[in-house]
C-alpha cells in the first residue's frame, strides 16, 4: 500500500491526486504502527499515540495543501503540475 501511494505520487500530474497519494502513504504507515503496537508491544500504547499524531498532522497538511491548490487554481486556472512552473510573476 505504501508503494502504491508512491506509485501514485510519481505518476500523477494533478495536484489533488498527488495529495490523495500522500494520504494513502500516511495511512499505510499508520496501519503498520498499529499492527506492531498490538502484536509486539501490547503492554504499551506508543504506536497508538504516534498514529494519533500522524492523523492530526495529516489533517493539517491536507487543509494547507488544499488552500494552496485553490490559490494556484485561481491564478493559473489549472492544477496540472507541469503547467505550474512559475514561482512568481
Amino acid at each position: 500500500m505504501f508503494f502504491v501511494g508512491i506509485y501514485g505520487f510519481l505518476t500523477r500530474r494533478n495536484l489533488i491526486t498527488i495529495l490523495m497519494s500522500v494520504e494513502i502513504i500516511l495511512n499505510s504507515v499508520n496501519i503498520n504502527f498499529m499492527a506492531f503496537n498490538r502484536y509486539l508491544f501490547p503492554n504499551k500504547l506508543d504506536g497508538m499515540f504516534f498514529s494519533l499524531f500522524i492523523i492530526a498532522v495529516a489533517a493539517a497538511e491536507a487543509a494547507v495543501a488544499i488552500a494552496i491548490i485553490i490559490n494556484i487554481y485561481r491564478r493559473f486556472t489549472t492544477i496540472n503540475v507541469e503547467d505550474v512552473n512559475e514561482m512568481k510573476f
Partner: protein
Amino acid sequence: MTPNQIMFILFAAVIVVFSILAVTSRKILRSAIFLLFVLVSTSGLYFMLNFQFLAAVQLTLYAGGIVVLIIFSILLTSHINMKFEPVGLKKVLFSALAVIAGALLAIITILDYNFSATTKAAQEVNMRIIGKSLLSTDYNGYILPFEVISILLVAAMVAAIVIAKKGGPASTGSDTIKQK
C-alpha cells in the same frame, strides 16, 4: 480459518485493490471515492485490532473530514467528467519498476526478520487511559507532542485561511494582514 482471519483478509484485499484503483483511475472523482473506501476499511482494521478510539478518529477525521475537503476542492477546480490524458508509457514503466523493486525488498526483509511473539498482557485502551497519558508529564506522557500538535493545528488553520482568501497576487500573508 477463523472469522477474524477472514475479516482481516477481506479488509486487506479491499485496501490494496481500492488503493491501486485510486491511483490509477482516470476520473478524479472516482478516485476520491476509492480513497474513501480505503480509509473506511483502514478503520475497520483498527476496530479488529481493538483500537476503538483510533478507529473512530479515523472514521470522523479521514473519512468524514479529509475526503469531503478533497471532493469539494475537486468540484471547485475541475469538471466532473474530465478525464486525465493517459500517463506516458515510459513514466509508468519506470515508476512501476522502482515501486515493485521497493515492495519486494520490503517484503523480503519482513519475511526474513524473526518477530518474537510476546506474552505480555495487552494493555486495555479506554478513554481514561488515553486522556491521562496525553496530558501527563510522566515517563509515558505525551504532553509535549500534544502541545506541539495543537500549535501546529492553529498555525495550519490560520495559514490555510490566509492563503485561500482573496488578495493581491503579490501579497504575502503578513502583508495581507497589514492591508486590512
